[in-house]
């Protein structure tokens, strides 16, 4: 074990900290899950991109710094420590991008990734449908072959699509073979939301923001991926109208690669929870100074702090494994259950410290409302516990 950072990693941390300290807005931005706040956040994303901080672990050609996974963790720690804005690009850069790196053609990588890191294309995730939430394989949105047009016609409805009303593109699963068994016959599509036949309707979430959307598709044409030897102008024109990732009828396996990212490391780095735990401890100290900190509340603060530490350490173990070629696999469900429930405990403890003032609009109540979505999105924690029981512990499915 070596729990120290190298000189170059420390220098990287210093560089992160310096840049953030002179760029992070001093006043909190309006919520990125509102129309007005979203555009302010996109400006922030472009500021990050201009100095190559948007996607530090990506290759330089796509706007990154080719940072190691360790350096990415350091960046995340510094980012949340600095109280920097939420990442409204996260569904693209943390969920779709790993899939493009793994399954995209070189042409797709060259086309989509730079536009994503520059916050020109803003991606939302089109998985859930009115009748397919936890049971993702139950989706019924379909893609029908249109040989004359040289592509697929997508029809159906996606819902609970985060920031769907503000994004420019959607990635999602559609049924390309209606006769196949549920998990087969699905294809992973990339769809521009300004395509003909797409209707997006935003609606309010629990926190009141218009952070959700329904996306209706009515025979939306998505062209076939361009041939490898296609002229670059023609290929670019085609890809700007969408495409498929990872092969027709192969969508389930492609999507599962994304869910591993979503549940585990990339979506929720430990930096965010450590930063929240630090703020919680500061709040507790304020109360303690005025003699209002009870034993019970102090215990909960200590517990939340320990858990933030445990999550950070668990993640260091994950990263060590990944760097050495061991995939966390189904164990990413441990991360997902742990961070999502930790986030609620952190915020709930803060609200209880605030007492009757907790209901007054402020960062802790907003954070709490957001934290409550954690055990629901990215696969409900009930599903995660099934995965842990069956695929980590080895209990029988049936």
């Amino acid at each position, binding site marked *: *074990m*070596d*729990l*120290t*950072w*190298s000189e170059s*990693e420390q220098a990287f941390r210093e560089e992160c900290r310096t840049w953030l300290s002179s760029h992070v807005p001093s006043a909190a931005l309006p919520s990125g899950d509102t129309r007005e706040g979203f555009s302010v956040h996109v400006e922030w994303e472009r500021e990050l991109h201009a100095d190559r901080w948007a996607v530090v672990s990506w290759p330089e050609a796509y706007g990154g710094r080719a940072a190691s996974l*360790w350096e990415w963790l350091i960046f995340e720690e510094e980012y949340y420590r600095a109280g920097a804005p939420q990442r409204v690009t996260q569904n693209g850069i943390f969920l779709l991008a790993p899939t493009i790196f793994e399954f995209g053609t070189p042409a797709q990588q060259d086309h989509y990734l730079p536009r994503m890191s520059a916050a020109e294309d803003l991606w939302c995730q089109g998985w859930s449908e009115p009748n397919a939430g936890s049971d993702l394989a139950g989706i019924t949105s379909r893609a029908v072959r249109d040989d004359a047009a040289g592509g697929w016609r997508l029809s159906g409805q996606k819902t609970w699509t985060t920031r769907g009303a503000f994004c420019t593109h959607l990635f999602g699963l559609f049924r390309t073979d209606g006769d196949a068994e549920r998990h087969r016959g699905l294809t992973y599509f990339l769809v521009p939301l300004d395509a003909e036949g797409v209707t997006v309707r935003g609606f309010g979430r629990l926190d009141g923001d218009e952070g959700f959307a329904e996306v209706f598709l009515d025979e939306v044409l998505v062209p076939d991926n361009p041939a490898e030897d296609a002229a670059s102008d023609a290929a670019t024109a085609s890809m700007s109208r969408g495409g498929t990732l990872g092969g027709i009828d192969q969508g389930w396996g492609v999507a599962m690669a994304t869910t591993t990212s979503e549940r585990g490391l990339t979506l929720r780095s430990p930096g965010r929870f450590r930063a929240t735990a630090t703020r919680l*401890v500061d709040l*507790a*100290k304020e109360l*303690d100074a005025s003699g209002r*900190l009870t034993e019970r509340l*102090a*215990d909960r*603060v*200590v*517990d939340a*702090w*320990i*858990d933030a*530490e*445990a*999550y950070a*350490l*668990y993640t*260091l*173990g994950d*990263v*060590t*494994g990944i760097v*050495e070629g061991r995939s966390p696999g189904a*164990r990413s469900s*441990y991360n997902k*259950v*742990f961070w999502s429930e930790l986030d609620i405990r952190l915020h709930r403890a803060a609200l209880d410290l605030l007492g009757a003032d907790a209901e007054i609009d402020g960062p802790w109540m907003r954070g709490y409302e957001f934290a409550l979505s954690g055990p629901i999105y990215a696969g409900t924690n*009930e599903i995660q*516990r*099934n995965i*842990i*029981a*069956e695929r*980590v*512990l*080895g*209990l*029988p*499915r*049936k």
Partner: protein
Amino acid sequence: MRFALTEDQIDFRDAVRGLLADTCPPEAVRAAWREQVGEVPGGGDGRVRAAWDALAEMGVLGVMVPESAGGLGMGDEDIVALLVECGRVALPDPISSTAYVATGLLRDHVAGDEAAGLLGRIAAGTATVLVGFPGSAHLPAAATADVFLMCDRGEVHLLDRSGVELTEVISVDGARALGTATWEPSDATVLVGGEAGSIAVTRAFDRAALGVAAQLVGLGQRMLDMTVAYASDRRQFGVPIGTFQAVKHQLADASLAVAFAEPLVLRAASSLATGDPDGPVHVSMAKARASEAALAAAAASLQCHGAIGYTVEYDLHLFLKRAWALAARYGDADFHRDRIRSVLLA
């Protein structure tokens, strides 16, 4: 940055796991119950003694002992990884006390031939050494111990068996072979005193808590393994009970607790090895979570076994009772939360 055991540590751990599976099966732990006080550590029919000898032969008892005294000259991380394995088989004490706490104390805080001689005997498996702390009057495997290192008011005292008066105490875990030691501190018994004494006592207590935390992680993993195997096999309503979500989720929750306790234990070992000033807080985090995780695993395991788990014929109770005993040893979760709080909210 690298947060994982090394390949060598994993190989050693796997070898020890295999050795303990062979030499310390549940029947050996059960045998230690039948005769609590005997000639050998943990008493019993000699099987635990045989396991002890095998551990000495493999070098486990001397992991922390300097090479010059016949040991392997390794550190906290190495022994802690192996104590997880000792917990997994519910090896009757005093492995942690002897091979970790006493060894660390003698190695780091005592110079001279007497300490070197005792370290050599520990590595060879010919001396068991207990470390006593104020407030933890009961000592495991007390009647068979050779040497007692008793901590008192910031001093460490060394006594041999004739220097302490032992009274047998019955534990819920019959393999613990508990006894209380009555003894009189004197100038002649002081091994480490003065400023060095209080440092030595604090360090020894941290190691005692961490050694037990490591065993609790192993116990938790073992109870869950047993329960997963049972729930996969036991059929009710025509299907294995492990297919029921109510069973799955209980075991998933307990395994989560164990999975997130383990890195805290490994980190604390690293902190003690490197002399990190936050070491004591890291130990408290580890012990708090390991205690809770083992108790959670015990509760879920008993419930998911149903009535068979509530019998003494079935092996589960050997592990449950060890977990109950060790969860409170050297500070329960509340004790360690308080210790963290005094630093965190200071």
